């Protein structure tokens, strides 16, 4: 799998190096780029992100990357905020909503955790849909590392679910676009398995 071209989109967010290092630990060569030509030519694309939806969309808009990302046909994996950016809109705004990349249906809302603490921070179990290649070898009840206060509710594009106060999407998929709310790059061997699955698609 090291023969592939793997590109991490330089979204201007801070956790790019941890995603890069995780892929390098798997023996995969990666390029970090915000050049549309380089991103389009990749076999696999990672869309990382931490921070707020507004700041990330401002950065992506500033780099004029929205049309490029919308036209991708190879497998794309959004991680954490990167996953949240894949849907239509996010409630993570000082007022109203923020327009996201609109790569698939769905919206991001604040986690309704009831009496539980926010952010939802730490290791939690996920339940993947059967037969998903992204979760090959990853059973229901496997722990992944989460850090977030907003989430995509469970809906028809949910690929794996998690529960914190209420169920939410731990992973989503529409066509070639995949997103995970947790951090595979920080989820130990389970995360390495998921990244390997994605790279092998």
């Amino acid at each position, binding site marked *: 799998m090291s023969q592939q071209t793997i590109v991490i989109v330089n979204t201007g967010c801070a956790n790019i190096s941890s995603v890069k290092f995780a892929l390098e*630990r798997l023996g995969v060569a990666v390029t970090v780029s915000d050049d549309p030509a380089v991103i389009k030519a990749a076999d696999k694309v990672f869309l990382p992100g931490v921070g707020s939806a507004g700041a990330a969309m401002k950065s992506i808009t500033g780099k004029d990357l929205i049309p490029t990302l919308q036209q991708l046909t190879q497998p794309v994996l959004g991680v954490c905020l990167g996953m949240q950016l894949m849907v239509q809109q996010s409630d993570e705004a000082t007022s109203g909503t923020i327009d996201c990349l609109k790569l698939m249906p769905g919206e991001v809302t604040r986690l309704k955790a009831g009496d539980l603490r926010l952010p939802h921070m730490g290791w939690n179990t996920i339940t993947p849909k059967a037969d998903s290649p992204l979760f090959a070898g990853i059973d229901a009840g496997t722990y992944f590392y989460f*850090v977030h206060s907003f989430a995509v509710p469970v809906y028809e594009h949910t690929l794996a679910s998690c529960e914190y106060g209420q169920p939410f999407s731990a992973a989503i998929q529409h066509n070639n676009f995949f997103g995970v709310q947790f951090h595979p790059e920080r989820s130990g061997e389970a995360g390495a398995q998921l990244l390997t699955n994605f790279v092998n698609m």
Partner: protein
Amino acid sequence: MLAKRIIPCLDVRDGKVVKGVQFRNHEIIGDIVPLAEQYAKAGADELVFYDITASSDQRVVDKSWVSRIAQVIDIPFCVAGGIKSVEDAGRILEMGADKISINSPALTNPDLINELHDVYGQQCVVIGIDSFYNKDNNQYEVYKFTGDESRTQQTAWQTLDWIKEVQQRGAGEIVLNCMNQDGVRQGYDIAQLKAVRDICNIPLIASGGAGAIPHFTDVFQQADVDGALAASVFHKGIIDIDELKATLVSEGIAMRERFRQG
């Protein structure tokens, strides 16, 4: 179910992992990167690196070790010490740290908490608090510059007030280090942690006092903290993480299970 976290803490001075007793007499434990790797493999859920000299020395500290850690470990880690500005925090996060923890600089400039929240998001803003129980007046008092005994000073803050303040300003997690207990391995300060838990709506990590496995059981069951941080019991091999977790699971406390390929 969200698991409670076991968090080994590595105090860093001049690029080496050290450990003192009640913040004094530091002895060298070993090199950072191999220790980080060892803890990740041993089942730690997260690691914290405290550069204990940075805030008190007023010097620029070489943090290239952050990047070296990020390359080798596959669990989250937090870096503390000497982060005085949004730019300082950005450099650490770019090197691959998941969170940054600020302590003395937040007391000197509380607006820094708001700025970090706005630029990098609440999830990476950890506030470390060194709290001392003053038995003469029965108060919990916040201290700063605890990395250097000669500069350690009491602040005007009562601990509970400071906890409320940092939450309002956008903190994402609190590490409460109970100074009376630090390094003496007599158990966490359950009374203080319970008092803090009552007013703390963000993740709370207990620090200071872990000496035996029952101390962890107590702090999770009685103070409902989200994580327990400890140093010497892990460095000295007094507690094995797998054994600790197995005991906690048997006590009904949710712990991350190791990954088994399905």
